[in-house]
């Protein structure tokens, strides 16, 4: 009962209302501010100085004490201003493998004429990323969050905070940006060889490479003909990729859930499949993925690789456990 009330109070106080899409503007109601430990020490020193000034009838002591006191109040406005009216939008987060750190891009737009300094963004109050946002500038920063397990990772509630300029106050705002990061299963350690490919066009279990039909893209290897490099992709700054073509002599490599021994757990199987996807892609093979309830058709290339990994990431085992 008490916990529920407290929760409701917190939700009201900090205006917590779940993930928000679009641009968050840090209006006054969204920025909170409290004195820091340093702030309390500063107040204690001022109190001491005031007592001294009264006792010694030190006029300049009064002047100094009041000047510093006014500066403290002023610093509160400064700290608040450092966050106020900032516009924040969540960016994208590239997929990662479980166990790696997902980087959620956050865009911060300072439309005003005041430089903002020394802001931090954190999701767990331990690791923070710090940045400045100069006047009339938009910057992008990334919050790193460890992706523990495969699936969809959300950043949860981020805290944007600052203690600038004097460290006497701590201003913060809670951001719950609608961002998601796909977390692929952690690939198993290499070892288990790829399953055998089955030929579709005859006997020869050959590598499906020819010159006629475009089948996809793979990572550039030294020695590839420059004529086969996907220049358009390179121009988009996505690295060098080589166009692949299939000939008649085609083979089919199916990475199939059911190929794996039954005693393996769900996650282990997904890990192994992820490893195979990586291996097959690295070898430039054309391959497909079969999961209970999901099939990714035979293809090659970077996009295909990611489609397969995403299917693994989002795979939910059927309720009866076994197919």
């Amino acid at each position, binding site marked *: 009962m008490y916990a529920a009330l407290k929760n409701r109070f917190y939700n009201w106080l900090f205006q917590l209302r779940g993930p928000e899409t679009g641009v968050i503007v840090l209006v006054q109601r969204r920025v909170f501010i409290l004195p820091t430990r340093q702030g309390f*020490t500063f107040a204690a020193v001022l109190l001491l100085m005031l007592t001294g000034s009264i006792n010694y*009838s030190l006029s300049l002591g009064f002047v*100094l004490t009041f000047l510093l006191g006014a500066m403290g109040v002023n610093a509160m406005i400064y700290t608040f201003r450092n966050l106020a009216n900032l516009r924040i939008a969540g960016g994208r987060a590239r997929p990662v493998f479980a166990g790696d750190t997902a980087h959620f891009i956050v865009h911060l737009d300072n439309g005003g004429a005041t430089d903002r300094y020394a802001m931090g963004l954190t999701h767990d109050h331990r690791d923070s990323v710090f940045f400045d946002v100069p006047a009339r500038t938009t910057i992008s920063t990334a919050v790193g969050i460890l992706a523990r397990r495969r699936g969809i990772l959300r950043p949860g509630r981020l805290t944007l905070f600052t203690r600038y*300029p004097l460290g006497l106050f701590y201003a913060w705002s809670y951001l719950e940006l609608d961002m998601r990061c796909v977390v692929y299963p952690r690939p198993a350690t290499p070892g288990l060889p790829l399953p055998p490919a089955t030929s579709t066009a005859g006997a020869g279990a050959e590598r499906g490479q020819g010159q006629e039909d475009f089948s996809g893209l793979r990572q550039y290897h030294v020695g590839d003909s420059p004529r086969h490099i996907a220049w358009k992709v390179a121009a988009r700054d996505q690295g060098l990729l080589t166009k692949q073509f299939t000939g008649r002599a085609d083979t089919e490599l199916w990475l199939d859930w059911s190929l794996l021994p039954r005693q393996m757990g769900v996650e282990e199987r997904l890990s192994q499949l992820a490893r195979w996807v990586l291996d097959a892609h690295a070898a430039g093979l054309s391959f497909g993925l079969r999961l209970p309830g999901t099939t990714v058709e035979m293809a090659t290339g970077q996009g295909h690789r990611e489609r397969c990994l995403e299917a693994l990431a989002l795979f939910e085992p059927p309720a009866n456990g076994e197919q």
Partner: protein
Amino acid sequence: MTDPKQPLALRHVLWLLLSLAMVAAPHASRLPWWVVALVATLAAWRAYVGYGRLALPSRWLLLGVVIGATIGIYLNYRTIFGRDAGVALLVVMLGLKLLEMRSLRDAVLLILLGYFLVITNFLYSQTIATALYMLVCVWVITATMIGLHYTREEPAFRHQLRIAGVLLAQSVPLMLVLFLLFPRVSGPLWGLPQDAYAGVSGLSDTMTPGSISNLILSDAVAFRVKFDSTIPQPKQLYWRGPVMWDFDGGSWSVSRFLYGTPEFTTSAAPVTYEVTLEPHSKRWMFALDLPARTVPRASTSGDFQIRAFEPVNNRVRYDMASYLDYSYGAGESRMALRRALQLPPGFNPRTVEFGRSLRAKFADDRALVREVLAMFRNQNFFYTLTPPLLGQHSVDEFLFQTRSGFCEHYASAFAVLMRAAGIPARVVTGYQGGEINQLGNYLIVRQADAHAWTEVWSSGAGWVRVDPTAAVSPLRVESGISAAVPRSDPLPLLVRGDFEVLRQLRFTWDLMANSWNQWVLGYTPERQRRLLTSVGIDDATWHLLTVTMLSLAAVIVVVLAAFMLRRLKARVRDPVKIAYLKFCGKLQRKGMPRDPAEGPVDYALRLQRLRPDLAPTVAAITQLYVALRYGAETGSSKFKVRIRKVEPGTWNPEP
């Protein structure tokens, strides 16, 4: 660097060392040499550690230094409390804390100590120069503190100085409100340490030949006087101080016993004025002959000496009224008169002899006094700041051999001579004259205006002032000390009136110093009450003051916050865009808002579909907007006119 436990960068260490050194520098001359050397070593050590990224010394070593330094300070001052020892201790602790400074948190603590060190400087000096210097110190400390709170590579220190300057400047209004309205209490909360006031000069309670001429060498201000009406003539400006009854052959001293009550008769109206007395660590308070009003927390004796209950250790301000035309003391007690006739036996035999012979010649006291003054005037007596040294029979030697002396020589010799002739006489010390500051229309009385004169008693007239110096050197009384002494005598620069430009500068400076004293340093509970009365708040209670102060402070903070938060949103500068946004606003109010992701053309198409009746207007405006903003067309007036004409109210409601 926002993590309080993060280690410090070298530049932070160096700026911190610099700002603390700036604050501590004025203390260096007042601290024992070994404290200065110790702290300088500690600071240099910290800088070296920072440069070489070395390890800080162990806590045990520092603890040893703490104990050693505390013992040293105790041996030096015989206490570890009080002003001087306290400051020494604080400076040493600061130096040691430097060598314990590892993280941001330590650095901030040192900065707070630095602020505190600023205030200790005010215990010694509160002049304008000190205030300005300390303001610079506070500025640099604050800039250092700001520097600690950047998280990425910091901008140049100049930038931090600018931010600190703006921050401090914006704090001034609130500071003024707090300063003026914070309820002031008079007097200390608890006893002040003994050493709080030392080394201030002024008249003492004894007078030996040479004691006043030493004072003359100081151009320090003794007090300032603001008259309510016109300033009296210079020769009437006798500022009465200690009255000396007892002569031991060498020096005159103040009577420990106070005779009678102050009584006088007068026919004229009093002059009224306000005296602002500089601290002089004695109890004298000065007033024109003859003071007719009492001063709070002081008593007036029968010989019209005003003595404060406590030594004057702070600048005090008091209202006073004086009668320039008066008579008093006709009914002086016999005991007092006997005392005013006493001479130490065995001293100054020739003077005593001379006095007796004068008595034999003149039966009338007045004639006798006139004769002596005529002697001073007509014979070769000289008025000089550098008289020859005198031996045991100082009055004899002065009257019959050296014949050159300063006011205390003349007053002393005259009083001894009168007593020898059987006329009760005493020496009065104080100040004579003063300098009018035309800029502020007030009178400055300096230590250099110190003076000594005599009072003689006769049965009809009571005590009458006789200034033998005036007989020797009328200029002293009429034009001040600088006109009276030979040019070769070493007078302080400020007292000489040689250069007109210098005089003007001096007056301007003194006016500033006086305003500073009156309004900053002398802002007492009494002045606070007067200020409030002048704005219509009578009987300001502690409660009312606090409420007024807090409300005014709140207003200032709100205004400041509004000012500071006003330029945070993106401002649209392009007039075309402003006009277009106005257009969008009009439509939004009619329930057709533009989607944030919608371009003007798409928006126009949607509007046209939604409201075919508006199609021509919307199309025209959008076309023009696109042309102005993205095309080569310029000039926004036509566009603005068109938008002004859009009247959503006249549009037909949607079918």
